[in-house]
């Protein structure tokens, strides 16, 4: 069993290596893409700073605290985007019928799809998120306790897991239809954008959606209440900031179950 997992990982390493070399063939374009991905988020950050220069605060949170949310969301979304690139380009696999190839290989389907694509340009997003997160931590002056020090990496890992699972769901839907990918963009990009602001500014139904359907609130906003020592205007029980890993794991397991259902449902486009 162990040796089989080892073999699968070795194959994945090779597949990923090939993808990386392929991407660097058009060098100028490659560099522009990394810079551009960095820049797209940078421009969004400038927009947020411009708004704060006029308003000062949103929902009782100042610019440093919102930057913390932003950094947390961007870092984890960028890493998830990098790891889950195979999912974001999955619709072409279905379109062209190449998923058949995945099915006949003796390696798990999830692992193959993950390894089939690794867009390094997404590093630009993650890098920018890390920089903002670092600056925000310096700016808000978090009171570091052992608990907070230990919990921050757990929160980041949970958020990455949740976003990867979200990309996986986006890909899974392609087993049924490839025309609705834009709806799922609203959840991935929309969700990570909404996580950049404190959850309590949204209307009740949207808050509920972000907590109990796509639990982004559990991995970004609620843990931040604890990390930044902010009061909870929603009046949720005191332990909810610590549910980030639980929520992410539950969501990822649901996504995996959905994936298996999708693979069973798959009918090839080829003849």
């Amino acid at each position, binding site marked *: 069993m162990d040796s089989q997992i080892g073999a699968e990982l070795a194959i994945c390493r090779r597949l990923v290596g090939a993808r990386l070399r392929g991407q660097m063939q058009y060098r*100028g*374009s490659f560099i*522009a*893409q990394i810079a551009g991905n960095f820049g797209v988020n940078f421009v*969004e950050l400038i*927009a947020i700073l411009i*708004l704060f220069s006029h308003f000062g605060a949103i929902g*009782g949170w100042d610019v440093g605290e919102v930057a913390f949310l932003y950094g947390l969301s961007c870092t984890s979304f960028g890493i998830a985007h990098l790891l889950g690139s195979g999912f974001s380009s999955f619709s072409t696999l279905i379109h062209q019928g190449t998923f058949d190839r995945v099915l006949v290989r003796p390696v798990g389907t999830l692992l193959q799809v993950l390894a089939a694509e690794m867009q390094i340009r997404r590093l630009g997003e993650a890098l920018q998120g890390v920089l903002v997160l670092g600056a925000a931590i310096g700016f808000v002056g978090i009171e570091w306790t052992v608990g907070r020090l230990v919990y921050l990496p757990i929160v980041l890992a949970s958020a990455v897991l949740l976003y990867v699972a979200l990309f996986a769901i986006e890909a899974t839907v392609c087993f049924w239809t490839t*025309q609705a*990918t834009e709806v799922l963009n609203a959840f991935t990009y929309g969700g990570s954008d909404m996580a950049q602001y404190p959850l309590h500014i949204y209307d009740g139904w949207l808050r509920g959606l972000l907590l109990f359907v796509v639990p982004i609130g559990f991995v970004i906003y609620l843990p931040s209440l604890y990390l930044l020592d902010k009061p909870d205007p929603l009046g949720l029980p005191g332990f909810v900031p610590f549910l980030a890993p639980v929520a992410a794991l539950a969501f990822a397991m649901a996504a995996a179950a959905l994936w298996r259902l999708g693979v069973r449902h798959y009918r090839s486009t080829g003849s």
Partner: protein
Amino acid sequence: MRLYFEVARRSFQRHLTYRVATLAGLFTNAVFGIFFSSVYRAFYQDGERGVVADFTLPEILTFVWIGQSLLMLVYLWNWWEVADSIRTGDVVSDLMKPMDFQLYWLSRDLGRASCHWLTRFVPTFAMGALLFDLAWPGTISTWLAFFISVNLAILVSFGWRFLLNLSAFWLLDVRGINTIAVLVLNFFSGLLVPIAFFPGWLRTVAEWLPFRAIVMVPVEVFLGQRTPQSALLIQAFWVVALRLLGQVVLNAAVRKLVVQGG
């Protein structure tokens, strides 16, 4: 003229067939519209401010929803049909046909835009009006000016996208330039934050670029912040300038074009 009309008509009909994609797109527009509206509403509440940089809350919400409605109409992102035809070599047969190459693509784009007026702009704006308190123009003439201004915005946007696509004559891979173009457009068109909110020097930069003619200028016309004459002047200038620039670049490209195969 007949030819270009026919090209536009077919493009209109082709875009009309993407029903599921249209519904999916409208859903996304609604989600982002609600998101941005919630953020602005919270900002205005926190500051207990009535007017910020000449925008009241209903006016800023109007800006948000016009922006979401315009997105597909001006086709801001990811239009690479000309570039694709350059990469595949199909461009050669188009260049040999007895027609104006740029006008041909403009006709296709206008056909697409007429479809998106109906399937994307109107429904998205209607959703915004149903969900939020927006600021409405007082006179019919403002509506008319807005309609003209949006159509000019489509022309400016086409001129810019056509130029970008021509870069494929020189570049093998346009993904890099695409990413950069998207971020410049998002910011300097005023889509993310109204240009009136920018700090002084950044506003000056924005005013010298063509991108505000694609989003910000129509919004200003709708809200009565800019006279129709001044909007028309800015937008018409960029339509003509980009069209001429497109022609110059196209001529240079055709001169160096070498095609394999027969």
